[in-house]
């Protein structure tokens, strides 16, 4: 069943068009990878799925994005609820200037969890989930800004897991991670797939082929091709895709 259906999505920054009539459907409990050269619009596309793009001035969006059949750009959409359901990990780690614990507890707290014990549990589980627990268990109450780049990124993933969204948008979640953390995150994705719908931007084609069911290739704001991952990497339909995959591009 299709969880997310995007139809004819156009997006403009001022008068520069960043997404050109994108149509794409993403199935429930599946992983979709977005690949493409830097600046082709992957982040932009991702951010328009939970209306993060609303925050940038001068952005114009045309077309439709339906989640569970509901147009998220309809006037009566509850954006807050939307964003709780559609969680996001950003390209650059962005922890709050709070303690490690408070960063992870933030989501549950705002959604009404006040019980100390439950919070402790959630924080621990989420940090385990993001493969960070061992490194921070002794400094839970120190500032998150003192973590290394990769630690910060995993913290952001833990923070997201703590709110248990239905859809996970991940913008290069492992680009700052070492292979071992990366592997753990990939394992996590494989596990989460059973419950969540996941869309992941990655520059690493091995990663795309390891974790995703389907892959979409973007170029210059256009969706060139979308297919089952193994097909796309072995028998791409389009010349441009082939060029990109084989590194013969540009």
């Amino acid at each position, binding site marked *: 069943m299709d969880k997310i259906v995007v139809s004819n999505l156009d997006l403009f920054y001022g008068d520069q068009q960043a997404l050109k009539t994108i149509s794409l459907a993403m199935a429930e409990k599946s992983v979709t990878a977005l690949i493409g050269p830097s600046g082709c619009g992957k982040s932009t596309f991702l951010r328009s799925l*939970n209306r*993060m793009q609303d*925050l940038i001035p001068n952005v114009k969006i045309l077309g439709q994005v339906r989640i569970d059949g509901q147009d998220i750009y309809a006037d009566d959409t509850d954006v*807050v*609820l*939307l*964003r*709780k*359901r559609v*969680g*996001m990990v*950003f390209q*650059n780690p*962005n*922890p*709050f*200037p*709070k303690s490690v614990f*408070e960063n992870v507890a*933030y*989501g549950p*707290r*705002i*959604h009404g969890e006040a019980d100390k014990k439950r919070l402790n549990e959630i924080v621990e589980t989420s940090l385990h989930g993001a493969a960070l627990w061992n490194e921070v268990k002794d400094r839970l109450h120190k500032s998150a800004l003192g973590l290394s780049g990769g630690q910060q990124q995993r913290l*952001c993933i833990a*923070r*997201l897991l703590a*709110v248990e*969204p239905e859809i996970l948008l991940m913008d290069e979640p492992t680009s700052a991670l070492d292979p071992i953390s990366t592997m753990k995150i990939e394992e996590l994705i494989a596990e989460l797939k059973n419950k969540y719908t996941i869309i992941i931007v990655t520059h690493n084609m091995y990663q795309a082929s390891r974790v995703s069911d389907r892959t979409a290739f973007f170029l210059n704001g256009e969706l060139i091709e979308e297919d089952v991952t193994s097909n796309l990497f072995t028998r791409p339909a389009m010349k441009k895709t082939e060029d990109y995959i084989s590194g013969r591009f540009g």
Partner: protein
Amino acid sequence: MHHRKAWVYFNDRLSRYLFISSAVLVSLIILCIIWFVGMQGFSTFRQVSVIDFFTSSKWSPDSGQFGALTFIAGSIGTTLMAIVIGGPLGLAGAVFLAEIAPPWMRAIMRPATDLFAGIPSVVYGYVGLTVIVGFIRKSTNSSTGYGVLAAGIVLAIMILPTVISLSEDALRSLPGTYNEASLALGATRWQTIHRVLVPAALPGILTAIILAMARAIGETMAVQMVIGNSPRLLSSLVSPTSTLTSNIVMEMGNTPFGSTWNNALFLMSFILLIIALVLIILVRTAVRKGAVR
């Protein structure tokens, strides 16, 4: 090339020395003023007992009685009043401007707050005297309407621009990622504001509140017009009393420099400084304790 490099380094060093000397100069000036006020003030104690000065509310310089309790209580009272009213209102204004206001509203309100800052205190005092005092007299059934309430309201309005502009700047200079991160977790705008943005901007907001408080406790002309200036210990919010500043400005000009009376007024300025110091430290620790966790 070498010549240029020497020049660049020279500039760097020069600017550093200039900054250091500015800091030294400022420190010296501060020291001078504090020393001057302190020296002048402390010579009061040659004639007056320390205990009397702080615990008595009997201010009758002609008969050698210098009890400043009334003024100390008045100053603390009006300042707290001003912060209690003006602090939250100003912070609300700042949050509104930084996070909520549509552009057109911001375009009106931001310059408007700057204007507030430019209105002379005499004008505030006059509006206080003619509008606010009358209003308080009628609505509280006090006989004159002068008092801490009137002064507090006038001061609350006067500190608004300080609180608003400085807090708004602090909020605006936060990286956009905090906002994004919180909203992406499904937080409402208000949750984002009070759990992430305001705590993150706290140092700037603190500075705003402290400078506002400083302005409130040190404000003279406007307070003096609406406080009533009777040397009576603060007993109700709507009966005339005095503050340190109002009494200083009322009596400073007409007391001979070097006389005990005049020295006592300087001592009162010094106390003002000490009260401010204590309040600043209190605000800092209180807000830090309360919000960062």
